[in-house]
């Protein structure tokens, strides 16, 4: 009975299904398929070149009970996500809000300027130059010239600076997409609402921001939160290109890097898949949590 209903439904919506089919096919082949594959491979021991062997929960046991580095990577990633995601959201919002008050031409120029770093995603090279450990590295040079330090600081290999640097560089780079969506959304805020609010007793622009602008922007907040959470859980390539993979003493080691380490260096794809599955679960739950939180904003 149920299946008949299902087929009836298919027939009824056949045009809509036909239209979404190209996307669905690609989505299943390149997204759903690999995700399912990773879940399955997570239960095997697989070195890429030889066929996988089923080992049950061994990989997870090894990860959670034996692998200190995985725990370190988890800690780094979570800490990173907790700091960078809200910060980047806030930065995007404030930035967009401020830019919004400029005349259109200036606004366009500024929007481009803020968006540029995310276009030039590969331009972390500039940071390695600024932070070069040589005494002729930019930052070291100025610090030494102004007498803050007498010998060059190894920004990219001294563990105490690495996490902070990763945070700054990530924030610099990710002001992009989320920011752009805020700029667009702010244009759509109905002027009459702010006028009405002014009559109703809004005293300053901060109040206006909190009670009017932000609630209207809720869909964009949601979007931006998703982007930044996924972004900060997936941070890795940036760290690898700044500090190498693995970074000295794993100071900037993240879950994604740990996964790459297992897959590309140690040829342990089974464990890498187990990590990927863990990360997947983590990201999905974090997104749900954020969703709940955003729903309360401005209420």
């Amino acid at each position, binding site marked *: 009975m149920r299946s008949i209903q299902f087929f009836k439904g298919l027939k009824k919506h056949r045009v809509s299904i036909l239209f979404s089919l190209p996307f669905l096919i690609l989505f299943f082949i390149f997204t759903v398929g690999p995700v399912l594959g990773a879940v399955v491979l997570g239960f095997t021991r697989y070195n890429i070149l030889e066929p996988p062997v089923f080992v049950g929960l061994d990989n997870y046991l090894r990860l959670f009970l034996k692998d200190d580095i995985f725990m370190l990577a988890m800690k780094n990633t979570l800490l990173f996500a907790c700091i960078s995601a809200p910060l980047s959201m806030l930065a995007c919002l404030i930035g967009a809000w401020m830019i919004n008050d*400029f005349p259109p031409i200036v606004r366009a120029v500024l929007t481009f300027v803020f968006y540029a770093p995310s276009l030039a995603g590969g331009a972390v090279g500039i940071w390695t130059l600024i932070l070069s450990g040589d005494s002729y590295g930019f930052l070291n040079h100025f610090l030494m010239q102004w007498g803050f330090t007498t010998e060059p600081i*190894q920004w990219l290999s001294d563990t105490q600076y690495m996490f902070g640097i990763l945070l700054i560089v990530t924030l610099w780079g990710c002001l992009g997409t989320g920011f752009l969506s805020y700029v667009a959304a702010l244009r759509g805020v109905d002027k009459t609402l702010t006028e009405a609010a002014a009559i109703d007793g809004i005293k300053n*622009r901060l109040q206006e921001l909190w009670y009017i602008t932000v609630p209207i922007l809720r869909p964009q907040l949601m979007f931006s939160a998703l982007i930044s959470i996924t972004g900060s859980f997936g941070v890795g390539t940036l760290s690898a290109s700044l500090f190498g993979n693995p970074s000295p*003493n794993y100071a900037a080691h993240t879950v994604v890097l740990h996964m790459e380490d297992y897959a590309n260096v140690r040829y342990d794809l089974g464990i890498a898949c187990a990590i990927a599955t863990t990360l997947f679960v983590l990201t999905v739950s974090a997104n749900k949590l954020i969703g709940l939180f955003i729903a309360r904003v401005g209420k």
Partner: protein
Amino acid sequence: MKMHTIGRIIAGILATVTVANSACLLCLAEDNAEDVVSDGGFGTSTAASVAGLPSFFEYAAQWDAVYPEDVIPVTETGVTELTAGQSLAVDFRVDRAGFYAIKLSYSILRSNGQYPVISLGINGETPYAEAAALNLMRHWENAWDGGGPLTDATLPQQNELYDVQTCYLRDTVRYYSDILYFYLQEGVNTLELRMDSEAITVHGITFENPKQAADYRTVKQGYSLSEYSGEPIYVEGESAVYQSDASLYPFNDPSSASVSPSSPYVKYLNVIGGTNWSSVGQYLEWKVTVPEDGLYKIGIKYRQNTNYALNSVRTITVDGELPFDECKTVAFPYSATYKNLTVTADGEEAWFALTRGEHIIRMEVTVGTLNELLTHVEDIVTQLNDAYRRVVMITGTNPDSLRDYQLETVIPQTLDQLEELRVRLETETAALKALYGGASSGTKIMETMAKQLSKFAEDSINITSSFADFKSNISSLGTWLVDAKKQPLSIDYLCLYGSESEMRRAGAGFWASLKFQLQSFLYTFTDAYMINNKKDTLVVWMSAGSTQHRILKQLVDASFNQEQTGLQVDLKLVNSSLLSAIISGKAPDVALDITAEDIMNFAFRKTGVSISGFDDYTEVAKRFRAGTLVPVTFGDEVYALPQTQRYEVLFYRSDILEELNIKVPDTWDEVISAMAALKKNNLEFGIPLGTSTYTTLLFQRGKSFYNQDLTATAVTDYDSLEAFKTCCSWFIEYKCPISYDGLQRFRTGEMPLLIAGFEMYNNLDILAPEIKGLWGMTMIPGTLREDGTLDRSVSLSGVYSAILKEDHLDAAWEFLKWWTSSETQLRYAQRIEMALGQSGRHNTANIEAFAQLGYSEDVLRVIEQQGDQGVAVPAVPGSYYLNRYLTNAMNKALYQDEDPADALIGFAKTIDEEIAYKREEFGLTN
């Protein structure tokens, strides 16, 4: 509304910062580009000491400019063979004192393919710096039968000719770049000709001055032939018949529809010359057939898009004669696109008288107008470096800008010297501007330097406050010097035409170009751009550059016996996708240019093919140092053959060590004593931070990374920990710099002792002409063992070639044997060097071939002795963990003040666990 304004201000500031960042990025990219200097295929020159010798200009200024017309034969008619290290000394009589040039007839003896280098002595001494190293040109034939257009599938061979050549000796190594004259006194003089590398046969030497050719106006009056009136005659540039270098091969320029011939689908070899044709003395010759006696104009379609605001200059001769004086220097100005140029003289397009039949037109790179200027600037750079070092000795490389070092009282001569250099620089800048009618990159660099020097003169405190700029200004001046000497030129075709016709237009026009580009773009979607392994071929992947690919392809076609194996070799250029190829079953039969780590990763997982089982393996293995095979051996199985080798040696600046009275250190203890003297003068010792230093120290104590049966690490015993502590102490106690640009600091002299890979020899040889003869290389410092011997072991590394599939096993093995053989490696290395220059030298792992690469005797001895002491780390499952945790332990010791030994011991267990885990995976017993 206050928030409003603040918001704007903050946003403005943020924006400025971001923009500044990107601007910064741009200018840095430019700087980096400047550092990449190739040397256009120039041969080696010996490091004969030229310190203290005058330049030619200084030498020539001593006497009146008298150039007698006498011809003084020096040798008897007999021929003399000269090989490297030999010399020839002859007495001869001079009737009239004056300046004479040397005309030398010689032929090349079969040898390494580099330029022969000679040096000259008159009456027992080298008269000036330029005479200390002279390159002689070789003679090559472009073996192309002329049938059908050339494509990249039919690369023509370049064959060397060993016939007799005659030329006036000229400087091609330094900056004078013209015919050299020697002042001879009346009476008996002695000429000494020393062969520094390669070998020649001398057929005759005479002292005589070249005759001055008549100028065009005079020559024109003597013309009796009529002007040619037929169709223009085109000669494609790529059809050149003779040339001085094998690197002057035709190449494909797909950039434009106007290049002849061109096609969006076929890669025609349609241009010749380019950046390889840029050093003085290099020539190309074309055969031209003219239909009737007459007067012809010579037009050339060329492109010179490298040296902005500078001319490339060529001498044009017809059948070995200079038609008129103006042909001596034909200037080709900068042009970003192809352009027509007709040879002009006396303000009009010049006519050349040619008889009916075949003629040889030769274009030879000749002195630019810059030679004297460059010689002066070279001297200025040398002196600036010297001054820089003198300041470093007082202030250190990172002077405190708040401190007054009292440089006026400590080194007053140096400040005077700087002021004098500023005046000289300004003179040279003005001269350069006058020559090219305006500012160029050269004048900018010199002006910047001069401006900085004038600031220094205002107040010596400015020296310390902009010290890093000072250094980078000096080095960009040095780089410009190397660049400005080069005169690259690409030639599409030559054209002989007369009064009734014109040359074809050089551009293709808008619509033709658009069509061409569109077609090229669409063609990229076709099969020609796919990687498909054909079934019945031996597929070989290499991951080097396209030059390497082209050269190896030529070698395979020419000398690998494909009939014997019954398979065609399909050589492909594929970068870093071996793993994916293996998984998808598209792995090549043979892979070149792979690391030992990669091949062992495959081998441990049963994908590599062991080659130690072949009957003749032991024979083949003798081609290499035993150590180089260690990283690809596991148990009894060997999985790859080495291609190149690399290890470290010690470079030293003899001038600075002498000045500070430091002996070149033989042991690490001697380095420590030298450190005191270096530190006192604010100079540094360069030693790489990383596992290579630790490995070397460990090996020198007779220890190894792993235990006997390679199941666990052995880094925690007493001696090994000592080695680790010593390694860390270089950075903790002696404060050696952790990251640095070794080449630059060695050049400026702030790092007079430097441990670096021996390949740096080649870079220093080319890129640092200003310190030629002032530095040397020797074996790495050793450790004194208990039995009294000095152990100078060094850590070896290299790149490998391996078989990945068993489908065509025998053919693959044949290929590998052919590829690593002495002949192939040597020919490959020579051709690579011709194309990329000395800095791209292929340091082959084949011992026999390595000896013939072109290193001079003494340099080769050092490199070989050091290599014989080379030890390599064996392959172990999970070996990457050791490297990783060694770095981590060093990191802890260096930045977290942890005791080095403690740090390493703490990690030893983790490493052992990983090795055990991986051994278990590969089914090995623990």
